[in-house]
């Protein structure tokens, strides 16, 4: 620490630039899981202006600030692909939730509801999640609702990518046959395929298209709903459909091939029964490796060995959790997957690169030159839930790991001679 301060003072004195303090850093002596290779390697990472500028396996690149990660594992910041971060504070309090729409359906975007001051954000960041995809709740339409990508740096100057995917659901509902749901999705996609660029030129022309379509009129589409459907077919917009049953997965694969969809399947508790088809058709999966409960009649094949089986079959995997708030528990899920036979490197990829690739987050998710420096230094094995991040860098900035939880803790274990209200 003293050495770093000295170094910093030296740099400031000898440099022309006033902006070096946070813009130039080397993390040295790290055991690097880069999210690309299966195995780790020893190296030093130079970060310039938030970007990974150099990775050296031999000599330590010069930088103004040096962080010695000797003996520590570093990974890319984990990316949680299925969260409500920034749009939900307390589950049971609807006034703190912004995940539902009442007028729009397919084109509903949660993007502008994002609250970077949510207490969930420092909590998940301090547990190694540096960015996340935030999803709305499913709408009344079987496909619809747009998710966005957010950086978890707690800045009011929000770094995000808006509306990068659409969500949907398919399966047993208790209200109508899944055959009807499938037909409806098919009809919606058929309508989407019929749209051409001219139709999309103005809201007025979209309104005409809606009037001409019995489906669009019946479903009360608004122009922004139609625009979202258009993107699904024409912009290769990722479509995450939550489904479980093996036969339902096959039906979705057929739809993917008919409409050339960029399909991702989430949940997928019976995916191991159709692993080959999933792999042949190149469908990434978002699964919860720790969930082995046959929680519905659609999920009977739910099995703790599913994730390792899917990895062996060659599937692209990402992880989610069953409950809100602790999205960082995707690493506990990853640990369970490894305990049951998944490869370690594969689990790290599932937490990082696979998410970035699937959702076109081009400069994040792996530790490579040119990527933004979202990097976590772990005190021990990152897949052990008892091990915590020692440092979390987002865009190369050493972020604050204080959380409301650690503050409350300290209030009840320190300065106990004072009444709690006068403690820090």
């Amino acid at each position, binding site marked *: 620490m003293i050495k770093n301060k000295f170094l910093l003072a030296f740099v400031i004195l000898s440099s022309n630039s006033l902006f070096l303090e946070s813009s130039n850093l080397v993390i040295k002596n790290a055991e690097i899981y880069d999210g690309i290779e299966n195995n780790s390697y020893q190296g030093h990472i130079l970060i310039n202006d938030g970007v990974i500028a150099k990775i050296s396996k031999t000599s330590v690149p010069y930088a103004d600030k040096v962080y010695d990660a000797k003996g520590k594992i570093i990974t890319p910041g984990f990316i949680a692909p299925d969260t409500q971060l920034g749009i939900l504070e*307390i589950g049971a309090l609807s006034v703190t939730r912004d995940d539902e729409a009442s007028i729009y359906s397919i084109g509903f975007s949660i993007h502008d509801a994002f609250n970077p001051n949510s207490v969930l954000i420092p909590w998940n960041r301090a547990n190694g999640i540096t960015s996340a995809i935030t999803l709305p709740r499913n709408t009344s339409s079987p496909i619809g609702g747009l998710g966005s990508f957010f950086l978890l740096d707690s800045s009011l100057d929000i770094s995000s990518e808006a509306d990068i995917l659409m969500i949907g659901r398919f399966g047993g509902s208790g209200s109508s046959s899944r055959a009807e749901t499938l037909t409806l999705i098919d009809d919606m996609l058929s309508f989407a395929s019929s749209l051409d660029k001219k139709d999309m030129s103005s809201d007025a022309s979209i309104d005409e298209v809606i009037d001409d379509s019995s489906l669009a009129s019946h479903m009360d589409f608004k122009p922004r709903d139609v625009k979202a459907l258009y993107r699904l077919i024409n912009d290769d917009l990722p479509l995450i459909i939550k489904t479980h049953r093996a036969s339902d997965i096959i039906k979705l694969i057929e739809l993917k091939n008919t409409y050339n969809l960029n399909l991702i399947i989430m949940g997928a508790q019976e995916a191991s029964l159709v692993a080959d088809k999933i792999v042949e058709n190149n469908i990434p999966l978002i699964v919860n490796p720790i969930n082995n409960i046959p929680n519905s*009649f659609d999920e*009977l094949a739910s099995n703790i060995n599913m994730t390792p089986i899917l990895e062996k079959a060659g599937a692209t995997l990402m992880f989610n959790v069953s409950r809100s*708030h602790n999205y960082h528990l995707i690493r*506990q899920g990853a640990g369970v997957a490894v305990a049951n036979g998944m490869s370690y490197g594969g689990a790290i990829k599932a937490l990082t690169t696979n998410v970035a690739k699937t959702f076109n987050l081009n400069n994040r998710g792996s530790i490579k030159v040119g990527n933004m420096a979202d990097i976590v230094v772990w005190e021990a094995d990152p897949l052990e*839930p008892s091990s915590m991040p020692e440092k979390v860098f987002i865009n190369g900035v050493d972020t604050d790991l204080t959380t409301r939880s650690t503050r409350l803790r300290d209030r009840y274990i320190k300065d106990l001679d004072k009444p709690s209200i006068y403690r820090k």
Partner: protein
Amino acid sequence: MKNIYIFLYFFCVSIVAENFKPFESTYEPLPSTNTIFRNANIYDGEGNELIDTDLIIKDGKVVAMGVDLPSSADLIEVDASGKWITPGIIDIHSHMGVYPAPSVRTSSDGNEATSPVTAEVWAEHSIWVQDPQYALALKGGVTTFHVLPGSANLIGGRGVTAKNLQRNTINSMKFPDAPHSLKMACGENPKRVYGNRNQMPSTRMGNAAGYRKSWIKAESYLSKLDEYEAKSEEAKELSYKPTRDLELETLAGVLRDEILVHNHCYRADEMATMIEIAKEFNYKITAFHHAVEAYKIADLLAENNICAALWADWWGFKHEAYDMVQANIAIVDQARNGTGCAIVHSDDEIGIQHLNVEAAKALSAGIKAGYDISKARAINWITSNPAKAAGIYDKTGSLKVGKNADVVLWSKNPFSIYALAEKVYIDGAIAFDRSSGLEPSSDFDVGIINPSKNRIEE
């Protein structure tokens, strides 16, 4: 003449009452797997870590623990070098069987949410013995679990403690001689459920009034019962026994210290209120469950000898669960010079399979908070402490000579995510064996995807 009939009636009733106790345990262990574990690392559930130690289980009991124990021909020898042994894990808060999988309306039997006080219902009468979740919990090392009714009601009904050995009747799973428990619930759930129906309680003060009104009724019932029971046999024959009342029988059981109170309660201020009510009516609270704010009153809990059954990190799903502190379990454990009683519970069908990892998270948070807590102590959070809270510590929850041989052999240190339960013994009989493929499956699992296979058979 009339008196004779009355006499005959009471005579018959008393014979039935004396000879038949309904819902008694008929549990019988599996045939013993008498075993000597060689060179195991052991957390005994009493706070001790024993390295390279042998353990003998025989005829259902822990028989010996020590270095280089002599073997005998009737013992199966298991090489446990490099592996770890713990007592069987106990979950003090489970809804297996009352909220079974699949989670469907027809077997969702955990909350009798039709009246705020339903002390008359018993969770065991809801339990579906074919729930496929028992076997999954067993593979996570769980040998005993305590099932409670849900938290919709102020007083939800009786809980039951069961062996995690699935049988075709609940009586044959019930832990012999385990006391009954009573589920109570504070806070948001009862006031939401009944407030939404414009019914009392709709506030926390309505909650408090509801408990107190019930205890007043229970006191009155109990005094009539005491009065009757104090009579001589002759006098009893000539008087009326107070009419049985299932609700008040349960509450009177609490006032007589026969039934243990397990109280769902998140907020510190509400727990303090519940402690006042318990003192007002002279009953004991055995444990607060979910207690997200227990760390704020850890000393009060320790002084009153009340356990806190907690999650390692679940929070935020409702307002009363907002102030989560990961060191909660450790702070409770360390209160009043380490006299606190902390329990890691699941209340969850996935969490119950990983209570060792949940304990690991809680321990890590405690160490970061500056406490010096050993793994040997932290294992108590999922073994001996829940055994105490279930009233079965004299029989299980730690590896002491003479106690039930509820034992888990772990592939690695159980505080690691990579540790898997390799062998699980209940009453000295092997119930799960990862290497031989011995594992239970419920009727639900049979032929349900592929008729010639079980549900998760590969």
